């Protein structure tokens, strides 16, 4: 039994810490009335560049490759239609996974997958 416990000593130590905290040992004081007002917090944040979301253009590091495609881009790509496809859990999970791994929007993955499929099968899609 003791051995079994020792398999994951961290879980026990963590549970113990939480228990001590629960009994007020080192519990931080939380009193909302003591906290600075929203206006003051906002002013301090703005001094170091933390501004209202409404006033920032959607920020994306140019150095970062194709992360999640954000709104303005989506509107200019023409990828604005939705469709429903019945598929198995497995297939949908795989779709998610590929999009996440490649950091691509799903519409882009679909386009590329179709292009690959057309190449592979040689199917003629031009009427």
């Amino acid at each position, binding site marked *: 039994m003791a051995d079994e416990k*020792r398999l*994951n*000593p*961290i*879980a026990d*130590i*963590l*549970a113990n*810490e*939480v*228990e*001590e*905290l*629960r009994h007020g*040992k*080192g*519990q*931080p004081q*939380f009193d*909302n009335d003591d*906290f*600075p007002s*929203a206006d*003051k*917090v*906002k002013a*301090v*944040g*703005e*001094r*170091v*560049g*933390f*501004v*209202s*979301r409404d006033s*920032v253009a959607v*920020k*994306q*590091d140019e*150095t*970062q490759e194709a*992360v*999640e495609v954000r709104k303005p881009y989506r509107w200019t790509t023409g990828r604005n239609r939705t469709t429903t496809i019945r598929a198995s859990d497995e297939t949908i*999970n795989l779709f*998610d*996974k590929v999009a*996440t791994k490649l950091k691509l929007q799903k519409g882009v993955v679909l386009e590329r997958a179709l292009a690959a499929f057309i190449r592979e099968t040689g199917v003629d899609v031009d009427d």
Partner: protein
Amino acid sequence: MPIIVFASSKGGAGKSTSACLLANALANTGANVTVIDADPNRPLTRWASHAKLPDNLKVVTNKDESTILAEIKESAANSEFVIVDLEGVASVTVSYAISRANLVVIPVQGSHLDAVEAAKAVRLVRNQEEAFERKIPFAILFTRTSPAIRGRTLASIEQNFKEAGYPVFTTQLLEREAYKAIFSCGKTLYQLTSSHSSNIDKAVRNSEQFALESIRIVRGLPVEHPDSLDHGQDDKPNVAEIA
């Protein structure tokens, strides 16, 4: 009722993943945990909608910057731990959340861009500390590090932080398949099985160590690692420098 906030204006630094792991580890001890998803992209709300969460773990979705303070206040009144996941931008919501935090976790991957954005978050914390005469504990958390190798960039960033006097978590969250699987499979870390990912036990231990260290910081106690514990670097071969 500690409030633990994950902040970095660098997109993809590991905020949502680390926040989720902390929530999982704390809830697994039986504690009541509320996660506030304050990212308009709603990553954790989406996760929670797929996952079958235990009763003592819940995710609430924050509307916008005008609601975050009330959301934090309400969650703090109703749960033992409040964890706030923020969007990767420098927004007022970030300022608000930090103003209520008992710990600000600033995730950093081993890139200089991450380090620059981390420094911005630290600046915000320190400005608030000064303006409001309130100590706001914070620490840098290295995420997605390799179990086997420690790159030069990471080492140099670590050195810079040290020189700047930034506290850094002893535990690093390693790059783990299991940490992705919780999102792709829609499960808590403790619901994963070997069919979802390998090395789940190691992933659990690593995130619990991170949780343990977080609580010690909140409690104002020195970080204590029992001798048997490695500091996140649990896979041999050991630390090697690579070019």
